[in-house]
């Protein structure tokens, strides 16, 4: 077999990889491609027959199988980290509900204090702090949801 035939078969394999690997993140795709290319160039020698080269490529496995393994690993990693994210979400929701309830119940004393012309501004301060807490918790929840989507 000529050196060109081996290189042609490697290029054909890498084209298949490119067509299949579009879903992988670009840096990971480039690194995996480089490793597969190095593997083939190391394993294939100019003395090999075309059948032997085809055997080396078959032993490496189809790009679909390799990318499937890559994707299943990524899914498992996301699954193992999901538990912690869920606990954080629950904690934030509880905090948001508590702060919201506090804000709601603080309105009543404000109204009563205002009507009785006592020191209503203290209640207003409590209400304002509670409202700020509720907004902060809502922002945390939105941030956590965005992070879990990535």
């Amino acid at each position, binding site marked *: 077999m000529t050196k060109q035939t081996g290189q042609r078969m490697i290029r054909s394999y890498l084209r298949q990889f490119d067509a299949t690997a579009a879903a992988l993140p670009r840096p990971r795709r480039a690194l995996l491609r480089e490793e597969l290319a190095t593997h083939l160039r190391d394993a294939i020698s100019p003395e090999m027959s075309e059948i032997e080269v085809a055997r080396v490529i078959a032993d490496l496995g189809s790009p679909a*199988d390799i990318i499937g393994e890559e994707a299943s690993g990524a899914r498992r990693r996301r699954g193992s980290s999901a538990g912690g994210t869920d606990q954080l979400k629950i904690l934030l929701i509880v905090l948001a509900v508590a702060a919201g309830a506090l804000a709601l119940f603080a309105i009543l004393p404000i109204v009563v204090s205002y009507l009785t012309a006592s020191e209503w501004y203290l209640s207003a301060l409590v209400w304002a702090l509670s409202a700020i807490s509720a907004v902060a918790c809502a922002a945390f929840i939105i941030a956590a949801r965005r992070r879990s989507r990535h």
Partner: protein
Amino acid sequence: MVSSTTTTQLRRGVVGPCILALLSTGPRYGLQLVKELDRSGQLLSSQGTVYPLLNRLHESGLVSSYWEMSDSERPRRYYEITNEGRRELDEFRNDWAEFAGAVNTLMASTKAPSSESESR
């Protein structure tokens, strides 16, 4: 098929520690690891799946990697085990001895009666 699914799951569980065991004796690049795993038996479903596995070990901090450049050869990505990888490997060795012993005992104890009934 049940048996092939079981084998696939078994491979997924044990190939990582086998790679760590090989790397515990020194750094290696992908093709070297593939050849040694192949010599040990049917540990890889296909050789290329070693690269996603290596990436997983790398992301978990169990192995690190570096590129080695030389004028005579192509640049190669070498992998080496980290201290965390060595701890993981030690833990696996202990767990595996216990686990394999339990499975062997159970398989042996359940195989004997069916073999006897077949011989009748």
